């Protein structure tokens, strides 16, 4: 049911872990629902220099965490904010229809982490 790319990112996830002195951190989901995604960002001069994640969830949740962190690493914040769940799913060669919501988690977690960075650093910007 999953593409080879999803299975690759599930079995060999990129960027697993925590960033102790992260500039932005955000957790979405809920163990009661069976999924939690937590994303850590290191940001320097408006560029995401490092991204890491921890995920409790299904294969798609792990794979989208891995792919989403890959896609934003090295990118300016503005570009990371344009990351959509559809783009993540496409980069993984697609997700089953019942698993699209897992990619939404990834988009939300990235945006949340950037918002957290704005807040922590007193930047008066809004993430919509």
């Amino acid at each position, binding site marked *: *049911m*999953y593409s080879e790319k999803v*299975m690759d990112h*599930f*079995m060999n*996830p990129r960027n*697993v872990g925590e960033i102790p002195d992260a500039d932005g951190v955000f*957790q979405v989901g809920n*163990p*009661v*629902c*069976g*999924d*939690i*995604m*937590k994303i850590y960002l290191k940001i320097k001069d408006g560029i995401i220099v490092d991204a890491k994640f*921890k*995920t*409790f*969830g*299904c*294969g798609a*949740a*792990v794979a989208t965490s891995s792919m989403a962190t890959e896609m934003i690493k090295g990118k300016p914040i503005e570009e990371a904010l344009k990351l959509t769940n559809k783009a993540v799913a496409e980069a993984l060669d697609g997700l089953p229809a*019942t698993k699209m*919501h897992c990619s939404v988690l990834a988009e939300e977690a990235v945006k949340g982490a950037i918002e957290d960075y704005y807040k922590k650093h007193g930047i008066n910007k809004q993430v919509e």
Partner: protein
Amino acid sequence: MEKIYLDNAATTPVKKEVLDEMMPYFSEKFGNASTLYSYGRESKKALDIARDRVAKALGADPAEIYFTSGGTESDNWAIKAAAYALREKGNHIITTSIEHHAVLHTCEYLKKQGFKITYLPVDEYGLVDVEEVKKAITDQTILISVMYANNEVGTIEPVAEIGEIAKERGILFHTDAVQAVGHIPVDVKKLNCDMLSLSAHKFYGPKGIGALYIRKGVKIHPYMHGGGQEKGRRAGTENIPAIVGLGKAIELATQNLNQSMEKLTFLRNKLINGLLNKIDHVKLNGHPEKRLPGNVNISVEYVEGESMLLSLDMKGICASSGSACTSGSLDPSHVLLAMGLPHELAHGSLRFSIGEQNTEEEIDYVIQVLPDIVARLREMSPLYEK
């Protein structure tokens, strides 16, 4: 890579001896059993033999066996047709909160048609309390349906006692024995049941064929209306090859029952003990003894079921999380929740269902492989603190 199939509660391969008996009925002895001429007569004979075999395996009379398209149809038929036939007498149905969806969703459908359903609770092991059954009965109660053995956690219910109560009170009693037949002794007389559902693909028979036992004298409506097959109670051209397969499979399963129960119980206990010893924060779900010989169900803290399944699959091991029908869906198992498991643990559950074809080496391999998988996934989990 060799596959290790440990999802025998979802479905089993058709045994060679079973398929061999089925084969002539596809293209050679293919006649319609309801016809007169010789082709049809061969089919009719095969039909009779299969019915005898099923009856014998259940301690029933051949005239009490009706072939259906599987466990789901048997459950739908028993419950809906009893409810509609007895509507005048009452509108209350008692079942349990851990039934298969074939029973639960049927009851929910009947609820919309004005029936009242009581879903009995279960204890932490998934056991129904016989006293609760007594308490739930009202003068409106027309049907009690309690499964013989649970498909997810393997718990074996006190069906004979519940049947006894139903009999005393003159209430119809149905049991979904889809997971029991071919795996533990099933005798309709001892179980005191009026109706019993079974499905061939759970015991090395073909898919798409099952049976409903209806005790003589029990009057329920037909569910498939049409031709006069199955004495006018289940219409539709008889699926002879599949019926032949069901007959052979149930005969084989009954002949080997003690042996296979012994073997499976040994492998089951080995797998349970191995996993509980080698992985911390793991819990066995279901009753430790009143349990299907082949069922292992565990909850692993801090990791999610599907990710364990996928990882096992990459190692060549086929298992299941909860039941085949809910994996892939996003809801945690209703059975585990009914047993009082918190949602997070229910999401982290795995079922291994062992079959006759499995070996001790395969069990050892699972015990060897799963700890690493769990460790890797916990490494990724935001919930896990070493």
